[in-house]
């Protein structure tokens, strides 16, 4: 049993560069989580839900210092007084970013890592690793190099590593934000298994649909306080409007339908003729021929490893091993030229921000920057208040807008968004959708790599489905094919492995 008694917590600020906007502090929390219960914590970004999990696994106050009042009791013991390695044997944590939660380079050692730290004899470690792999059905991932795995596979290994330790409490902090729908579905299966084993599960999440039917209680946070506690029944009966005001995403994907429909025929902007992509000797995608009009927003969907990333890098002229021709307004655009006219808003935007202020960032690398254009773009994207700030001090969503601004100032015609909505709450997702919409109205050609069906429905008017070395479907959203698109998308994204999730 976990008990929060009048808990308040304020992080020590680490000087200026620490996110000021994203406080995540807590004020006077009272909560009791029973054994075997699955509790979903949700709310807008920065509402304090992540801090809740850190209080349970001891990272607060042991690793993240700050001012803590009240007490958090785990089976009657105050967590802030237990050393972290002891808490670790009772509470298992899975985090958001699959890239940074493994410590070893091979999968077996990684699954064994937690058990090794608890100093079990070697034979038992072997048994536990094998058992974890069997229960989670990931035997095919054993004896592999973790760096060669996809994000979803990495997340499974992280989960297995915690599972092998057999803790009584599981904490999951936005575990799905970097996963495709298929892996989300298998995460759902794993959570069901934990419930049947009588484990306590605390889960922080923005994507809610896959937790319906699993979560027993849903707790909505707002500005560091518990706003409302719902039972599963009550939560499902909320109207869309009520849900959105609280900043929450959809609870049922089947209710969402593609909204953006482009009826009139427009002039063709980009054309691909017999484009094939290779990776070393391997063929990734073959013979892509397609015509794309200006203003279209095209979703690139398909499972991990089907070539979406390679395709988007080829569009931007970053992938070398390509055959076939790209045309823009009827003229061939070679690789170098494509680098000039295209821009990619990466999933981790930090990689593409170089300058010392937002203003300088917008004109970085341009010989004669047009200061009028810079000012106007910043204004449109609501960045003017931060013009003199270092991009590093902004929030994730603001950084993303800076990247979009860069694309605008550089007058890029083709913009690729790579997973723009991973880990975003409803409000931020809607804002990204609006930005994409504006770009589309300016006649830019936009590609979006995404696993987020809710986002797809709001922004995209066409989709390319990647599977088995080709583009298997190329569909425009029309009023009469919504059902087909939905089915195709779910199929492309997950092949219905969630069992009861998409039936």
């Amino acid at each position: 049993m976990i008990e929060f008694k009048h808990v308040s917590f304020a992080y020590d600020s680490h000087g200026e560069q620490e996110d000021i906007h994203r406080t995540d502090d807590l004020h006077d929390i009272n909560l009791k989580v029973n054994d075997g219960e699955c509790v979903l914590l949700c709310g807008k970004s920065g509402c304090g839900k992540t801090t809740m999990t850190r209080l349970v696994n001891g990272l607060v106050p042991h690793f993240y210092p700050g001012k803590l009042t009240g007490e958090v009791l785990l089976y009657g013991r105050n967590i802030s007084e237990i050393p972290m390695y002891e808490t670790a044997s009772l509470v298992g944590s899975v985090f958001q970013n699959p890239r940074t939660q493994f410590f070893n380079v091979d999968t077996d050692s990684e699954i064994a890592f937690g058990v090794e730290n608890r100093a079990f004899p070697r034979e038992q470690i072997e048994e536990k690793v094998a058992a974890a792999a069997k229960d989670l059905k990931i035997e095919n991932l054993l004896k592999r190099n973790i760096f060669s795995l996809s994000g979803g596979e990495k997340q499974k290994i992280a989960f297995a590593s915690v599972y092998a330790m057999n803790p009584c409490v599981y904490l999951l902090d936005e575990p799905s934000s970097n996963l495709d729908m298929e892996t989300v579905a298998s995460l759902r299966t794993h959570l069901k298994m934990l419930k049947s084993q009588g484990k306590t599960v605390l889960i922080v999440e923005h994507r809610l649909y896959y937790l319906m039917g699993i979560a027993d209680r849903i707790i909505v946070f707002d500005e560091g306080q518990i706003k409302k506690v719902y039972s599963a029944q009550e939560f499902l009966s909320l109207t869309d409007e009520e849900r959105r005001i609280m900043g929450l995403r959809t609870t049922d994907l089947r209710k969402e339908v593609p909204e953006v429909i482009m009826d009139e025929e427009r002039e063709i902007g980009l054309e691909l003729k017999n484009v094939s992509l290779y990776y070393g000797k391997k063929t990734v995608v073959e013979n892509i021929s397609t015509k794309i009009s200006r203003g279209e927003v095209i979703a690139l969907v398909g499972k991990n490893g089907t070539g979406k990333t390679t395709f988007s890098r080829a569009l931007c002229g970053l992938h070398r091993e390509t055959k076939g021709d790209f045309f823009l307004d009827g003229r061939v655009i070679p690789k170098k030229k494509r680098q000039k006219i295209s821009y990619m808003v990466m999933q981790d935007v930090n990689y593409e921000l170089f300058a010392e202020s937002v203003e300088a960032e917008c004109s970085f690398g341009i010989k004669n920057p047009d200061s009028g254009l810079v000012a106007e773009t910043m204004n449109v994207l609501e960045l003017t208040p931060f013009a003199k700030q270092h991009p590093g001090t902004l929030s994730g969503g603001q950084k993303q807008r800076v990247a979009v601004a860069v694309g605008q100032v550089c007058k890029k015609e083709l913009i690729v968004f790579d997973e723009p909505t991973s880990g975003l709450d409803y409000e931020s997702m809607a804002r990204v959708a609006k930005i994409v919409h504006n770009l589309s109205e300016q006649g830019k050609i936009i590609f979006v790599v995404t696993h987020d069906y809710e986002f797809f429905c709001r922004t995209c008017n066409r989709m390319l489905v990647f599977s088995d070395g080709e583009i298997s479907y190329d569909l425009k959203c029309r009023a009469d094919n919504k059902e087909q698109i939905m089915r195709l998308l779910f199929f492309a994204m997950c092949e219905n492995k969630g069992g009861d999730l998409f039936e």
Partner: protein
Amino acid sequence: MIWSVYTENRLGLQFDPRTKIIMLILCVISATIAPSLLYESVLIFAVTVFGCASGKVRRSLFCAAFYGAFYMLTKFVISLEKGTLYTVFTSWLGLFYTVYPCAFLASIILSTTKVSEFLTATSKAHIPNKVVIPLAVMLRYIPTVCEDWGYIKDAMRLRDVTPSLFGFLKNPAMAVECLYVPLLMTASNTADELSAAALTRGIENPTPRTCLIEVRFRGRDWIATVLAVCVLVLGFIWERIV
């Protein structure tokens, strides 16, 4: 393996990480005192044998061959006895011959040691957690940087900055800025997240940890250590016997 290039290592002998650390220390001393070029070759030969025994045959032979070529070049330059080439070359020759054997051995060690093995061995050797954990996080961080570099290169190209030697020469300040700003921005996050993941899985446990792979000082470790000591002693008495 600490490096990201991980290949299943079935052929090679597995040495205790403690042996590897001792050997590295001995190698550093040997390379520093190396009395002659011939002795240096003996040292390289010893490292190559160790590399082959650990199962890194291709890498070892390649590094040995590179050394061989460099050795020939050195002989040739020394035979010139004077001239610009001679002066330029000999001035950094010493540096190369001191660093090369150590770098060679270190690369073999890094590519054959698993992080968990390393942690277990150091805890057996009673090295305190305060020293070991930051070191392990640091080692784990290296391959992450290599991955990051790929993304940064893409971002630079789209901003019309060439991420190549030519681009660097054309505008070094810009190239450096493009590299270190994103790296620094991501570094503190990455390090925090890595540490959090390790802490919540009980890395701080003071009880000596166990390991999926057996870590123990075997006969082969004794042999390797004794041989390494012999090479070092040879270095000290070299001038008397040759």
